[in-house]
């Protein structure tokens, strides 16, 4: 079932970088890597689940919207700084943000990301595609 057509994973204590094909079957892998990274940080299960949801929605957008024709690459990177700040970047090289009135999705992906992340940043790099960066404060009490 898992077609990891290109997986180059370099996990280390402070982060990881994944380069995957933009396929639905690859999205659970990203959550898996994320949970591994967050294990040592003392984050609550609820916080980890929230972060997994926000990152899943970002990956889902790359899979569902970025490549109308052939799936291209998605790069997911996660970095822990000072043990309490997590930055996750999801970057595709697809069509760029294209607002669609008749989106096949539920339309809650971006607001879910914004609601969970302490900061959500969306860039449209000059060389095409979309870059989504989310920052999560891992300190307890922070929301």
């Amino acid at each position, binding site marked *: *079932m*898992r077609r990891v057509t290109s997986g180059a994973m370099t996990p280390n204590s402070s982060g990881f970088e994944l380069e995957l094909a933009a396929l*639905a*079957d*690859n*999205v*659970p892998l990203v*959550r*898996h890597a994320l949970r591994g990274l967050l294990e040592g940080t003392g984050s609550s*299960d*609820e916080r980890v*689940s*929230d972060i*997994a*949801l926000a990152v*899943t*929605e970002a990956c*889902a957008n790359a*899979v*569902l919207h970025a490549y109308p024709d052939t799936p291209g690459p998605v790069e997911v990177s996660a970095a822990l700084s000072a043990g309490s700040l997590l930055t996750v970047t999801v970057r595709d090289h697809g069509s760029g943000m294209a607002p669609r009135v008749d989106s096949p*999705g*539920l339309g*809650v*992906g971006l607001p*879910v990301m914004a*609601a*969970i992340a302490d900061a959500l940043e969306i860039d449209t790099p000059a060389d095409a595609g979309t870059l989504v960066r989310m920052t999560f404060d891992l300190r307890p009490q922070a929301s």
Partner: protein
Amino acid sequence: MPDVNAIVAERAEPGVEVVTVTGEHDLSTAPELKRQLDAALASGAAVVVDLMQTTFIDSTVLRVLILAREDAGERGIAFRVALGESTGYGVRRLLELTGMEQRLATAPTRAAAIADAAAL
């Protein structure tokens, strides 16, 4: 991924088809869930979706559930979602964030969902 992530359909009692979703589900399994729900809705039975052992869903899975519920409503098919204490935070959280908890026709246990669906 561990095989605890599963979607299983069964005729739990006469006239009630139960689709049991366990573990975590996202866009990689949403199409399979949709297939099984479509088949259940086509079976002529009442339909229950058991989320009691579901730990995580994303918005593509939520969308499949919402559409199935709407479809059942339009076709006059009894439909219930079992969503209770054992349901994972990763399911309840998305429903809460999106305000959909009230809109899925839930019952707090699998047995209650089956009884509700059978009675409709």
